């Protein structure tokens, strides 16, 4: 979908929208390949490719040469100039990034499709529930009669 030059630029943008963690254990959205998701996202925004390209063109190829603070400043400028396209790109980037099974565990959530496995959560035993609800029961009735 993207030419090599476009892809380099887009990955650099995406890596600023969702940057990697400082210790490198969590990859940024560019490194993770969110660029591949964007052309498939037409169920979530009209013309995702045109929108992405509008932001890329506004930033220009030289964006990749900038230092990180300069990149952030350039992105803020485009966010102000093209708020709708920029907001759509941010939204789609989050969707592409967090819909991947390999990112969920980085935030404590299972990689698996949520059904049929779900999560094993034990029911609180009766003693714990009794202890927790004791002060509530001790106060007694808290509803109003209506007669």
């Amino acid at each position: 979908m993207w030419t090599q030059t476009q892809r380099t630029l887009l990955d650099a943008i995406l890596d600023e929208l969702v940057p990697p963690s400082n210790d490198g254990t969590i990859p940024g959205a560019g490194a993770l390949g969110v660029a591949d998701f964007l052309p498939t996202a037409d169920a979530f925004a009209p013309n995702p490719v045109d929108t992405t390209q509008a932001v890329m063109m506004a930033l220009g190829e030289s964006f990749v040469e900038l230092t990180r603070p300069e990149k952030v400043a350039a992105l803020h400028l485009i966010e102000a100039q093209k708020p709708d396209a920029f907001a759509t790109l941010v939204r789609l980037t989050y969707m592409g990034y967090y819909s991947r099974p390999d990112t969920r565990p980085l935030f404590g959530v299972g990689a698996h499709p949520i059904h049929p496995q779900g999560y094993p959560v034990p029911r609180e035993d009766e003693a714990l529930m009794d202890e927790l609800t004791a002060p509530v029961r001790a106060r007694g009735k808290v509803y109003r009669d209506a007669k």
Partner: protein
Amino acid sequence: MQNEPVDVLIIGAGASGAAIAWSLLETRMRILCLEQGPHLKDKGYPSRDDGYELARYGNFSCDPNVRGLKQDYPINADDSCITPVNFNAVGGSTINFLGHWPRMKPSDFRTRSLDGVGADWPVDYDTLAPFYDMNDRNTGVSGLGGNPAYPDYAPELPPIPIGKLGQTLAKGFNARGYHWWPSDVSILSQDHDGRQKCVNAGTCDLGCAAGAKGGTNFTYWPMLENAGVELRSECRVREILVDEATGFATGVLYHGADGQVHEQMAELVVVACNGVGTPRLLLNSKSKAFPDGLANRNGMVGKNLMFHPLTGVAGVFDEPMLGHEGPMACSILSQEFYETDPTRDFVRGYGLHSGRSTPPMTYALGGYGVDSPIPWGAEHREAMDNVYPYLAGLTVVSEDLPEEHNCVTLDPDLTDSDGIAAPKITYRLGDNTRRMLRHGEERAKEILLAAGAKKVLSKGDDNVWWRAGWHQMGTCRMGDDPVTSVVNGWGRSHDVKNLFIVDGSIFPTAGAVNPTSTIQAMALFIGDCIKTNIETLFD
């Protein structure tokens, strides 16, 4: 095209349509239900896909304007701070509802007498209690008996786990001396009645692929279809027909799955299309006898729309709260601030709900029901790494009061895929509600801090959640006075004696609890009244 006439025609196969069909089974009348949506395959829910959260923003969004499927009618909510959400299929909005199952309380049925606001219901809590019980048995309800916020009743199944998040918040409520209790849920905490228990997947809005949630596609409809109730899916009712001479409903015109317009005659017509769909259908059913819409001689159809406006406050704790593990909306519920207290600057009250958290995408996009993505860049990293896993939140769910200017009308331009006029919502937040929400936010902050939160995050901007029109009530209110209400005390139209309405549009007031257990209890009650009065039903 004409079909063989039936005795009872129910429009809408959601929560209320299914419940009344069950109630009328024993009459042995010929019952037909027309439903505009499809019969979804149980295994086809998006929670089985790797990228399951995406469906929340596409064809499984709770917002019909986002889904935009053939069976969805668009809703113009430009003049509202809340947009109505729903699901259109066999099971209705119980396909994507969250299964939170609190009952209304005795005072909810008497707000005019007790507090001078709203309207008293023609029925009371005690009358409805056996129907709540009956509906719970048909649905499968889990919870802990002995809740001091209610007259005595006990859910059949033990509570679902409240989890680390619920336990943490419970300690905060206890520290403040406030009421809380494990939520009653129409979700199975153990295998029951041939159905599988909940697996704590946490994405109940994407349909329950386990079949553990009390959607009528899993509860009532299998029983009904076995018992011979005819269900025609992908059939959208265009208008209800009337006999100009007698003023009785004679049947409907509907767009069938075959793309043709059909006529279906019936002795008795029951409308169960939810609080926006029902007034829309009545307003679209114009005739010489009813030029302003069916059952609308007094102009009350569509008026008094109520939601449960809500806002949320979140606490950031020291340890991960595992909030994504467990049914999405249900952990614990506090009703400390539910009843009117004259020392406050508002009447009636609200509930504090501890929902659970969502998986990371929904959080990054602003949270469930909110379109406001978190910042990009360094702030994004901070929020995802140091806030998201540690969150536990409280939602303030307020009682809305009926106000005539909040209403459903027909949009002059917008139509559905069959060219039928779409509904338009006009709604603004009442001052009483605004004060209530502010009070709730302050209490929620206190409780979160008492529970050990190191930081509390609250928008504090007076905005309610946008995609939170889950509960749609009041638009065809019931009452004894034909001048101020659309149906009588047992759901029969004052104007059209063989027309009944059974969904939340008949609620005179909204309470501050999720409405479906009350909607279905009312549908069973109305079914019972129809059976009791069968000899003189149309007098």
